[in-house]
């Protein structure tokens, strides 16, 4: 009898662990992706694509397929959901083992990782400068992410212009409106945030500890970078960076900014009304809109700007991605034609994907489209998308550099220590040393 109970329990444990694997999701989808991705597209009218967000870029790709199918009825697109980290790992594995055939025809790359990958694995990507894609129809600062040594390697996709999102109902409790947060500085932001915290008990802002998104947004809003034009680290003596760190530390100390440990908790603070707002790339609006009960209670405006820093603005950028054609593609001509007729040539496509996914395009002709000017009920009946297009045109450009991720992590380490009480100058020095060390291969 005892044995039976034990074996039953063991069987139960196996079932539990099996379902645990199943709900892991990303793992299993990645595996099927492997199989499908093998050998790229076999048929001449088929392309394989890797991208990661079902509600966003994956959806956009599927709509692009429909647009292209109108003129090419036998065209088939095989879109494989592959999380960004997996794309990066697979790309690295394929390129270093020389097994490029395992890559798809087209893959989506984070703008911040684009240069690093093209420089590390030049053989893996097609130079698409003369492929028929009209790059002049994209914002120049955006195309710059995918240009290496004067050659274009990517078709720009989404835009990560920073928006300040606020809960109008929470602001109201403290006697504020969203207009009070337009064109302000960070100290005004903190002052109002403290009053809101005192009245409602809610912080105004949350962010992920150990990630430097907010730092990078603040830095770029004043045109600052962690690297100079020659790609050398520029942290020690970088007045903008110091101001950013002071501002961040002060926000945390005042309680206006709370740090959470992971992305789910961060989104949770927004959808569970833990905080009164957020500041992030405009793609965050897709996550905000999952809280349907808060419809009409959100509003957007620009972000606060740094004080006493030359070139400070209320605009910045966080994230964004571009499509790359791999050298594994058996049919690069089809890939070029597909991209130039959809993501680089169809306003209709962008008009379809915008209302559903909030995918803000960097394709310039679409900015005048009517769809962009339509008021959005969720965001207090404001034409938020044309507002964001306006923000996007004012974002100062920055240098990402090849060692962008090293620098980001070094700065994240520094800010964690500064918040815990370390000296800012010493930590900035440490961060620069870390990056210099990583670069001294």
């Amino acid at each position, binding site marked *: 009898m005892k044995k039976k109970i034990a074996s039953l329990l063991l069987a139960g444990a196996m079932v539990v662990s099996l379902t*645990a694997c199943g709900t*892991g999701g990303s793992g299993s989808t990645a595996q099927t992706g492997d199989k499908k991705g093998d050998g790229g597209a076999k048929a001449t009218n088929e392309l394989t694509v890797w991208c990661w967000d079902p509600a966003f870029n994956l959806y956009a790709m599927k709509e692009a397929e429909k647009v292209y199918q109108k003129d090419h009825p036998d065209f088939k697109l095989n879109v494989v959901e592959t999380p960004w980290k997996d794309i990066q790992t697979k790309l690295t594995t394929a390129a270093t083992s020389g097994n490029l055939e395992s890559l798809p025809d087209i893959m989506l790359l984070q703008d911040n990782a684009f240069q690093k990958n093209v420089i590390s694995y030049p053989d893996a990507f097609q130079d698409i400068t003369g492929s028929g894609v009209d790059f002049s129809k994209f914002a120049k600062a955006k195309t710059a992410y995918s240009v290496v040594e004067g050659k274009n390697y990517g078709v720009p996709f989404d835009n990560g212009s920073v928006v300040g999102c606020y809960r109008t109902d929470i602001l109201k409790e403290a006697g504020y409106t969203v207009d009070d947060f337009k064109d302000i500085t960070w100290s005004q932001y903190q002052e109002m945030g403290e009053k809101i915290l005192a009245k409602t008990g809610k912080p105004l802002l949350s962010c992920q500890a150990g990630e430097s998104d907010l730092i990078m947004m603040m830095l770029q809003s004043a045109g600052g970078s962690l690297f100079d034009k020659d790609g050398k680290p520029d942290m020690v003596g970088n007045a903008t960076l110091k101001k950013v760190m002071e501002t961040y530390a002060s926000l945390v100390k005042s309680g206006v900014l709370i740090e959470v440990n992971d992305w789910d908790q961060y989104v949770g603070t927004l959808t569970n009304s833990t905080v009164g707002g957020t500041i992030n790339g405009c793609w965050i609006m897709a996550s905000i809109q999952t809280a349907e009960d808060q419809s009409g209670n959100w509003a957007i405006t620009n972000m606060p700007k740094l004080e006493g820093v030359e070139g400070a603005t209320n605009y910045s950028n966080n994230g964004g991605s571009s499509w790359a054609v791999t050298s594994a593609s058996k049919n690069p001509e089809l890939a070029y034609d597909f991209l130039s007729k959809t993501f680089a040539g169809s306003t209709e496509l962008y008009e379809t994907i915008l209302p559903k996914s909030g995918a803000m395009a960097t394709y310039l002709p679409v900015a005048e489209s009517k769809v962009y000017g339509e008021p959005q009920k969720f965001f207090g009946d404001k034409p938020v998308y044309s507002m964001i297009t306006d923000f996007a045109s004012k974002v100062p450009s920055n240098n990402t550099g090849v060692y962008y991720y090293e620098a980001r992590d070094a700065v994240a380490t520094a800010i964690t220590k500064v918040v815990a009480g370390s000296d800012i100058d010493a930590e900035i020095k440490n961060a620069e040393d*870390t990056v210099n*060390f990583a670069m001294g291969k």
Partner: protein
Amino acid sequence: MVNSNKKRSVGQKQSMAGWAFLTPAVLLIGVMSFLPMIQALFLSFQTGIGNKMKWTGVTNYIRMFKDPVFMQALKNNFIYLVIQVPIMLILALILASLLNHKDLRFKGLFRTAIFLPCATSLVSYAVIFRSLFAVDGLVNNILIKLGFLNTGYNFLGHPDSARIVIILALIWRWTGYNMVFYLSGLQNIEYSVYEAAKIDGASPIQSFFRITVPLLRPTILLTAIMSTNGTLQLFDESVNLTNGGPANATITMSHYIYNVSFKYVPNFGYAASMSYLILFLVAFLAFVQLKVGDKRD
């Protein structure tokens, strides 16, 4: 063929058959495991971005001792090793001898329950621990309800508490696994030995230290080496539970190797040399443990 077979002795034939059975496995292990290891060794003497590598000698091995992040990771690994492994093994030993008791009811149930954590996936248990110890997680809620805290404590936001959470998670996940080894070891100890000790007036604690522990020595040695090995290669907990944070306070060597290979500008030569350091450490510690633990003459 027939002729040549006849010339061989029975012993030779048997050893031929033995080799025939071994060959596929040996070939597979050689190609899948030893070949990459040798390639990695060559790689560890090269440097460069992506697949543009050139020879550099031992610079990678010197470089890692100047790398503050790697040194921090090494230190973290040893903190886990020194604190977690003894606690876990002692706990497993105690549980095993409790559950080996002859008169205990529902033995199977308890054994399974303690072994169960080990059947969960590494990623999911790490994610569950992360949400348990979140600022608004279960642990904080309980502590607030019981009056120990006023507001949630950010366990994963402070270096010491984050390490403690990782150690707790490891103990939860692996104690049952080691207990099973001890339980199987205990089956080889005759119950009459305990009975004789009892008749001679030994207390349960005395018979634990004088009979159980010495007779289990080989098993204890085995689990100690396996746990040392596992702790030095720790990866999932660092990535999924704390993401190496706060400020690299919980990052492990394997996690850093992953970052160097896949997250940062890839430097596989350096990553391979760090992996070889781990190999060296594991081999060295296993050697020491064997010397100290194996009392056979």
